[in-house]
């Protein structure tokens, strides 16, 4: 778990530490590709998340899920 927290901390430092370059709008073609979205296939992700939430204890993330279910 400490390794995971370390990874998180490194990412935060990368984001906040000024490591990023200024990217002009015309340089963002690759970033605009569908496969670069944080959630590239929302319908598939919804079904996968529903399965994992039903079978594992952990949940949560930077988006709202739907309602609960009586999944066994």
């Amino acid at each position, binding site marked *: *778990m400490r390794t*995971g*927290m370390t*990874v*998180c901390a490194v*990412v*935060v430092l*990368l*984001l906040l530490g000024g*490591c*990023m*370059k*200024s*990217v*002009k*709008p*015309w*340089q*963002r*073609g*690759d*970033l*605009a*590709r*569908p*496969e*670069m*979205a*944080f*959630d*590239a*296939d*929302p*319908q*598939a992700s*919804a*079904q*996968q998340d529903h*399965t*994992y939430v039903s*079978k*594992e*204890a*952990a*949940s*949560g*993330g*930077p*988006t*709202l*899920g*739907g*309602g*609960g*279910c*009586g999944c*066994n």
Partner: protein
Amino acid sequence: MDSPKKPPNAALLALTATALCLPGYSRPAQAWADSNVHTGYRYSAYRESALPADRNSTGLEASRYHVDTHQFNVLWPSSEQLDFAADLTYETMSGASPWFIVPDANGKPVQVMSGATIHDQREAVQLHGRRYQEDARQTLLGGISHERDYLSVNGGLEGEWDFSQQQQTLSAGVGYSYNRLSPTDGESSAYPNRIARASKDTGTVYVGFSQVLDPQTVAQVGLSYERENGYLSDPYKEAYVAGNVLQDHRPDRRNEYAATARLRHYFDAADAALHLDYRYYRDSWGIVASTVELGWYQNLPWQLQVVPAVRYYTQGYADFYQPFYTAARPDGDYSSDYRLSAYGALSIRLGVMKNWREWSFSLSGERYRSGGGYAAKGGVQENPGLVDFSVISAALSRRF
């Protein structure tokens, strides 16, 4: 890599010019960059592997759950500033599920499965309305999910705000769900200790921050908190306690915290995108979990895309969990649910997608295996009810 780079085709040029790439946006960019209506259908077949004979109290192999899911979705742009989406889900479930665990003659935990095959179905509707502004987006969402023994109603509000010439995006959301349980055979002569009716509610808040790191890389970090109140036990599960079988009983409150990090990087030479996701989770029941997921989105000629992905999950056990109890607990909390045990899981997925004119087709498969041996911390006593499963999905979508 720093030199200005032109988008490789007209579609990307249009996307870029119109949208300037909003890094936190979590739906396909086409949803707001054009005026097309999008519709889609997905079928998924979920199949759990049989419970091995040496884990079953009967000494026989036992079949488990399977679920068939049909998803329909439509995205309708009302204007350049507003769109609506609806997701409909219909699924049928049947099979046997873990009931409680007993020690065998050698003290090894073995699973007792539910006696009768369960048949149920679920219908769910989820609606979204999203408003777009120059540097912000807001989404209002709500939905309902219905099963014969379960009803859930949810709603929420999400927002995204762009900064620094849209190189940074702050996102936040707040949600609530109310859930009503009415278990089959509750308080019946066959199951007098099973509750007949109960409820629980869940409140969720999250914040996220994404940053464009370079012309091919974007990253996001997030924090989420969820609070559950009410009946959080499983009415269909029981626990073996010093020779007696008691109803599953868990604390009526649970606080859950998650920290996430996501990275996306496009490899120009390979024409492929790397997805790397990590989540750290802990809750007030004492469970700590980590999830790592790695995906590779490989573009191929003829508008084909292949996506192999691997996911590793590991969790510790809840404070009150045991496969079976040799003595009563002072707090009266008991659960032998494998989902509260210590274990790990490894999942492998492969997807293939093909675009053709206004159509898109995809086919994907996943194999999920769990076990005590996969846990990050070794030496755990494996729950005999841990599940392995496979999922096969096929999807079709069209824009008009």
